[in-house]
């Protein structure tokens, strides 16, 4: 691999641009395929290019055969996953570092200064903005999960509103079934239709009998993983 190719891969991820590295396994030559551009040592015809971009969209890697029977390996290199946690509460404290270990860039959003402190979240990006403004600025995409944990509708609802207008692959909201039903009622009244509301995982997390904040964090991260890997989002 040319050093320049490696640098381009690293730069693409830093800039949150997906890119596929296509390697001719016979010659070792490599070409980079971006959603709108191609850069590298060999060209691909229209059909092959479409196949490579299908792999890229699905974040999938694998060997494909070209027309002249050479084996090409397609490596999807996608932007890092992101998790936006609304509510710098007790559950967020174990959830943030766990998600970082799982490969997510984590931002904790909470305008309440007593909660959103560096001391409570060492090494984690903390945003003290209002959830709707903070989320709009963070612009959740298909590689982003959003979880609201504040229990406070003044903070959770505006965050969920922005999340539902985004392409986030996972949206979860902490709260009992009763709380969640009330929340759905408010969002319905605000104009959201059922398919949108069905995107919200609530009560958040997989049912694993979690009790402590750390266990609840495990159940939330497990639920996010399920959505990411098995596409249970709408």
């Amino acid at each position: 691999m040319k050093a320049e190719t490696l640098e381009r891969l690293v730069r693409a991820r830093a800039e949150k641009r997906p890119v596929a590295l296509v390697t001719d396994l016979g010659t070792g030559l490599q070409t980079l395929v971006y959603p709108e551009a191609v850069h590298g040592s060999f060209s691909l015809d229209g059909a092959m290019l479409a196949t490579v971009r299908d792999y890229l969209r699905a974040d999938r890697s694998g060997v494909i055969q070209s027309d002249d029977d050479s084996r090409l390996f397609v490596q999807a290199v996608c932007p890092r996953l992101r998790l936006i946690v609304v509510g710098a509460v007790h559950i967020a404290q174990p959830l943030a570092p766990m998600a970082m270990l799982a490969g997510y860039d984590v931002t904790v959003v909470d305008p309440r200064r007593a909660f959103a402190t560096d001391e409570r979240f060492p090494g984690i990006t903390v945003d003290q903005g209002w959830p709707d403004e903070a989320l709009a600025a963070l612009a959740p995409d298909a590689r982003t999960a959003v979880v609201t944990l504040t229990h406070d509708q003044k903070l959770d609802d505006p965050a969920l509103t922005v999340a539902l207008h985004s392409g986030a692959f996972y949206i979860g909201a902490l709260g009992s079934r009763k709380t969640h039903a009330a929340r759905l009622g408010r969002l319905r009244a605000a104009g959201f239709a059922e398919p949108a509301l069905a995107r919200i995982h609530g009560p958040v997390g997989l049912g694993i009998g979690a009790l402590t904040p750390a266990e609840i964090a495990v159940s939330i991260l497990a639920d996010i993983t399920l959505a990411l890997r098995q596409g249970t989002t709408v």
Partner: protein
Amino acid sequence: MQDEVLERAASWRAGNRRVALATVIATWGSSPRPVGSQLAVDHAGAMVGSVSGGCIEAAVAHEAQQVIADGEPRLLDFGVTNERAWEVGLACGGRVEVYLERVE
């Protein structure tokens, strides 16, 4: 899933370390790491990432030194049916094909 490996490989290379990159390109049967998983190895044997659950990393790192020396990319095939001299079996009975290349 290849998070950090490419970044680490790039920073090693920028620091004038000689680096090889191993990538899982195909798997058959049970295999601990999916296609696309990567392991970077430097000339001193430092490793980041993985291409299995620890079963074949030592063999890949050994082969990586050859790739770093001669620059020729290689396809390595690990599995119960493999008969090459550097064969390392996978305890799980699976088979993994690994592409190994030098970062120039």
